Every structure is written in C-alpha cells, then in structure tokens.
C-alpha cells in the first residue's frame, strides 16, 4: 500500500546541513498495522511528516502503490492524528464542527456529513459530546475527537504521531484498544510512531526500528502475537516479553551512525 524507498531528509542550517533521515526504506501492506520506534531524536516525527506529504523530501521516494501516487503533497488517502491533540483541535469550534470541517470537500450533502460525524463520534465513544468545546473535554477525550476526525475523513491510511504520549497510562490503554478496534472495523491501514516499546509491540503487526539520527531502518520485526490483542492477556504472554526485549535491545544498541 505504501512503499518508502531510500527516504532522505536534511535541513539546511547556518553550518553544515543537518541530516535527520539518511536512508529509510520499508513497505506497508494494505490492512497492516505498522509501528515505528526509535530512540529520542531519531527523526520519527520528520519521517511521519514526509510520509504525510507535509514535508518535502531531500531524497528517495514515498509512493502509494495502489494508485502509483508519489506523495509530494498531502494525499486524499491519508489522515493524520498528531501528538499534541489540544493544539490540533480548533478551540473556537465545537467538537462536531472540528470533525465535520475536513468533510466539506468530499461530502457535499450536509445531512450525509452529519451522519458520518455522528457515526465517527459514536465509534470513538463520544456520543453526546458533539456540542461541547474541545477545552471542556479531558486530554483523552480530545484525542478521541482527533481520531474521530481522522476516521470520519474515510482515509485508507491512518498515520499517527505518538498519539498517546501525552495522556495517562489508563487512558493510553483505552485509546490503544480503540485504535485496534477501529482498524478492525474500518479495515484501515495504520502506521503509528511511538517511543513506547510496549505500545509498539502491543499494537503492531510489524515493528520498524529506527536508529538515532541520521536515521536508517535498523530492523523490522514481525509481531506474531495472536489477535484480538488484550491489554491483560497479550501483555502477559512470554512471547510479548521476548519481542519487547528484542526491540529494546535493538534500540539501546542502535548504532549511532556518525555524521560524515
């Protein structure tokens, strides 16, 4: 579904250019849930923005293989959920308006839009909050609004940038399961960036491990844990601990590729 080949990204600075991504290559199959982990400063957010078409690449390619579209600008098929949910929602608009706004370009009929919005809010468990303002909601609920907005958009590919980093552990567990459920129901392909190894293994079908800057793909690990995943059961499996340790080792050992 998505093919990333030799993705490279450098930023010009006052001195030598800062190379954040050196050579990142991987693919994502349709319907897969791929998680990306790496040490701090590994350029995970940069990678995500390149994939979403928000950041021009310095080299390499990002292609949506089904249509052959090269991602140079935000494509129709991709929806994003950002880490800083409170800043990604419009505080001057109510929840339903936040979810509805992106739909105005794809769904002409107002009634149809309302139906889609209501359904999305229902899927994330926010029935009855359509008329609230984002700032009246808790952090976890705000992130649900952002997720509702993403799924209402009917994307084929959902990209999430450390979406649960800023919420407490209990809320994070709920939101992780929510995303798994949504992926199941809507048949979405998901790419989720996180620094939390447990989360990466719990959610992913495959885990991509990035090195620190300048980043390359260190390894791709298949997660052969059973579906449906469960916070209590899955995380109690010995296989979970094995995979987790393997990822952790890769990250701590991740070669710091020195700048030339």
């Amino acid at each position, binding site marked *: 579904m998505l093919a990333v080949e030799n993705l490279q990204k450098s930023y010009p600075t006052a001195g030598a250019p800062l190379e954040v991504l050196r050579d990142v290559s991987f693919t994502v199959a349709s319907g897969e849930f791929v998680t990306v982990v790496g040490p701090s400063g590994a350029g995970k957010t940069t990678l995500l923005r390149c994939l979403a078409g928000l950041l021009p690449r310095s080299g390499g390619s990002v292609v949506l293989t089904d249509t052959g579209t090269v991602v140079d600008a935000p494509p129709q098929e991709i929806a994003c959920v950002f880490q800083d949910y409170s800043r*990604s929602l419009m505080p001057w608009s109510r929840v339903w308006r936040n979810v509805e*706004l992106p739909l105005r370009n794809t769904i002409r009929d107002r009634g149809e839009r309302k139906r889609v919005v209501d359904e999305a809010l229902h899927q994330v468990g926010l029935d009855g909050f359509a008329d609230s303002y984002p700032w009246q909601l808790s952090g976890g609920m705000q992130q649900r609004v952002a997720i509702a907005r993403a799924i209402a958009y009917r994307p084929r590919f959902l990209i999430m940038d450390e979406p649960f980093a800023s919420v407490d552990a209990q809320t994070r567990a709920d939101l992780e399961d929510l995303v798994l459920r949504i992926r199941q129901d809507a048949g979405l392909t998901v790419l989720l960036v996180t620094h939390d190894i447990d989360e990466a293994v719990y959610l992913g079908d495959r885990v991509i491990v990035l090195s620190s800057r300048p980043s390359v793909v260190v390894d791709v690990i298949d997660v052969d844990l059973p579906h449906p995943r469960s916070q209590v059961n899955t995380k109690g499996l010995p296989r979970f601990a094995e995979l987790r340790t393997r990822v952790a080792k890769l990250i701590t050992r991740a070669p710091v590729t020195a700048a030339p």
Partner: protein
Amino acid sequence: MTAAGAVRRRGRALVPLIVPAALVAAWWFASAASTSPYFPPLSRILTTFADNWLGDRVVSDVLPSLGRMLAGFCAAVVVGVGLGALLGRLPLLAHALNPVLQFGRALPATALVPVSIAVLGIGDVPKILLIAFVTVFPVMLNTIDGVRNIDPVLEDVTRSYRLTRRQRLWHVQLPAAAPQVVAGIRIALSVAFVMMIVSELIAATNGIGFVTLIAQQSFRVPLMWSGMILLGILGVAVNVLFAMVERRLLRWYAHAPEE
C-alpha cells in the same frame, strides 16, 4: 439560598461602590463652600452637566463627537483587518512594508493634526479621515501578527486534511488570529478616542472637546468641569462596553492551549 444569604450577597455586591461613593461625597462636601474660581461646588458642576450634556448639547455636540470617532474607528477596523489579513498571508510583502508600518505606528498621532488641517481643512470628513488613518496602524499590525502566528500544529492539520485556502482563512486563520486582532482593536479604540478629543481641542466647530476647551478659555469653569467629567465617563464606558463584547467573542480563548 437563605434570606440572610441573599441579603449578604446583595450587600457584597455593593462593596465595590463604597470607595467611589465616598470619594464623590468627599468632593461634594469639600467643594460645597468653595469660592475658588477653579474648583466650583460639585453641585453646580452637576447641574451644569445636566443642563448641557443631557439637554441640547446631546445633538449639537455629543453625537457629532461620537459619530466622528465611530466612523473613523469602524473604517479603520475594516481596512486594518482586511489589509492585515492580506499582509499576514503575504509575508514577503509585509516584510517589505515593515519600515513604513512601524514608522506609522511609532509616530505620535497628534503631530498629524496640523497636517490634516493643512491638507484637508477643518470639518467632519478630515477629522474622520485623520482618526481612521491613525487608528488603522494598531489594527493592521496586530492582525498581521495574529494571522502570521498560527500554531504550526494547526497548520499541519489544515494541510493534511487538504482544506481549501478559503476554508483555512475563514475557519482557522481568522479565528486563531482573533485574540490578537481584538487586542489591536482595543488599542485602536483608545487611540480613536484620544484623537477625537485632540482634533476638537485644536480646531473644530463643535464637539465635546471643543465645548470644553472654549469653556475653559472663556472661564466658564463649571461647564469645563462638566465636559471633562463627560469625557471621562465616555472613555470608561467605551472601554467597558468593548470589554463585554470582547469577552463574548473570545469565550474560547481563556481555555485555548498555551503555546
């Protein structure tokens, strides 16, 4: 709420009035026996106030003053927000015009009054144009600032969800800029008020400031004081009204996430 509680609550609401009331009372009694030409008894000032500013002068002076100020102010807000939004989205142009804009803001507006009289003369239109010209700068500069500084996360959201330019402007950029714009408009309001007074103190044929100054020059001191009191009340009233509007418009801002 108990009866006692209700009484206590109403009592507490009156507390803010105690000190002002005491001051007014002090003024009243201190000046009651006054023979000083500069500080007539407050009672006389208040009767003069009622005779003049609640009588004929409403039409002959108060309305023209306020009318000029509001006309200039509204014109400045419309032009300032419009141009400011445009320049906010064209950063290169805003940068190119920056010296001109900063100079316009830093220039003491009162220095322009003789220029306005020289070029346009004495009359309503020149005053309105002067007020508008001076007032446009804070509005425009604040609007540029507000439109420019949209949260980068929101920028990402609008781009990734492929909102049209019009949608971005209307639904994201202008509301996001609103606090800054409104702050600029608040400044503009006080500037317009000051310019209204100053233009009338320098060269006018009617208006509150005009009447007050003439009263001072012809030694009609109670009328002078009453005019000053009216101007003071108007200055406060205008600000208070605006604060109410602002609170309503920016209900959400108090809760917006800090940058």
